């Protein structure tokens, strides 16, 4: 543990964008009983920071993001957004869900426009900005396609444009690229970094892929296996930016930190796996 937190002594940020303070979340299980997903979890994400969260499956990573989004309310502890306790939905955040959530009955352009429409922007202006965003995620010319006419990678790009068009201060991402093939994934990771580089939003990026977590983030947070997950370790990734996710994986700095985190994560993955077998 001491080693795990060793790298985080540098000031995280003046105002934390997202703060979990002693957060607990328990679900009632259908058929009686309860299941504690998170217990006494504390974690802060600085403004403008790119934080990756890794942990074994079922460890409560999506639950953590849902808490940050305001879609779930903690049973214990507080969720702070820029220092304020979160009430209702987190209006300063966009959320890229783990599953495919584009509206199948709307074209790419209309899906991207949604957030602006909900903000009552004039349709003509919303449309121009949606087209602009589609171009920025590399989908110029696909404006009038319906989601089922787009590949998985393209749908993720549309979802990214949909999340970014409302210019959120915080971007919550739940395994956004895990369903993509390796090549598509690397291209999207690089594109994401490039977009992020432009205005450095706060990003909370959940993944089960440690390589991806390190390649993208300023800091990697390791969550323990469930039940009652907590933060096991936090590792600052001091690798230079801008980065190329494919190349950075080969540097010694990367391998070094990978080895250190994997040391800790391996045990948790084994634990989670053993629980599944029971």
């Amino acid at each position, binding site marked *: 543990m001491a080693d795990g937190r060793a790298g985080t002594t540098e000031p995280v940020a003046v105002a934390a964008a997202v703060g979990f303070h002693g957060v607990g979340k328990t679900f009632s299980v259908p058929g009686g009983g309860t299941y504690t997903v998170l217990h006494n979890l504390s974690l802060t994400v600085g403004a403008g920071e790119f934080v990756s969260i890794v942990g074994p499956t079922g460890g409560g990573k999506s639950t953590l993001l849902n808490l940050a989004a305001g879609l779930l309310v903690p049973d214990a502890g507080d969720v702070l957004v820029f220092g304020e306790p979160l009430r209702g939905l987190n209006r300063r955040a966009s959320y890229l869900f783990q599953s495919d959530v584009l509206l199948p009955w709307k074209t790419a352009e209309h899906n991207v426009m*949604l957030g602006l429409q909900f903000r009552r922007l004039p349709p003509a202006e919303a449309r121009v900005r949606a087209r602009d965003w589609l171009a920025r995620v590399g989908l110029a010319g696909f404006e009038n396609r319906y989601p089922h006419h787009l590949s998985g990678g393209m749908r993720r790009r549309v979802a990214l444009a949909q999340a970014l068009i409302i210019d959120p201060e915080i971007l919550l991402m739940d395994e956004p690229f895990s369903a993509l093939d390796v090549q598509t994934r690397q291209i999207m990771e690089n594109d994401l970094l490039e977009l992020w580089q432009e205005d450095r939003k706060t990003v909370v990026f959940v993944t089960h892929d440690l390589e991806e977590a390190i390649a993208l983030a300023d800091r990697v947070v390791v969550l323990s296996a469930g039940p009652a997950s907590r933060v096991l370790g936090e590792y600052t990734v001091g690798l230079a930016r801008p980065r190329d996710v494919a190349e950075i994986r080969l540097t010694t700095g990367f391998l070094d930190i990978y080895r250190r985190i994997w040391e800790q994560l391996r045990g948790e993955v084994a634990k989670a796996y053993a629980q599944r077998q029971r």
Partner: protein
Amino acid sequence: MRSGRDNAEHGWWAGREVLLAVQALVLVVGLVLWEVLSRRHPGGPSLDPFFFSRPSLIWGRVQQWFTSGFIYRHITITAEEMILAFLIGAALGIALGFVFGRSPLVSRIFDPYIKVANALPRIVLAPIFALWFGLGVLSKVVFGVTLVFFIVFFNTYQGVREVDRNIVNNARMLGATEADLVRHVLLPSALSWILSSLRTSVGFALVGAVVGEYLGAARGLGYVIQQAEGVLDATGVFAGIVVLSAFVLVVDLVVTVVERRLLVWKPPAATEEAR
């Protein structure tokens, strides 16, 4: 594309043109047999034209109806009843389906009543409606509405309930109000369910109109058939059925076009299934 697949699976005879030709042939053979048998051959098997009429007679009657203009007002009235029954039934079904789908309390309270009302064979209501609403258009429309309503209601209810939770959450995160949710997420989702049953509900609207007319009316295709039956005019009954069938085909064509237009976003497999 479809016939190509059929070809591979069933051999040459299932090709689209061949299939159509064979289907037409079946019809022609059937009609010819009917015609020949109804012209009484001494000794051989025969159909009494008094009961079974004869294709040439029926066709003649249909032609006469159209040239004299007699049939038009009946078609118009049936179409009017059908369209009204469909529109009103669908509107009520969508509205109530929404309320039930969004409010667990309402749906729990009224669940048994809806179930019973749906299980009731609605045909027994037709005479009562004739009593209450007279022999005009209104009683047929009300009867058709009771048929259409439940189909649309259950599909809307399902459509509202089955929306992916994360799709709703995503829209809410993007800033959707409850009204936005209904307009952009819930209604389109329900609409795809409603459209998948469009053929059935339009069909029921027509059944409502025709059965209602049959049981008591002064106009409409159901009335025409019933009148012919009343004077034991088999030719008239069959001619009425022919006109009604042609009417159904036209309605079906319209429904297909509407479905195609409104469900462009659906993957082909799902659209195929819905048809």
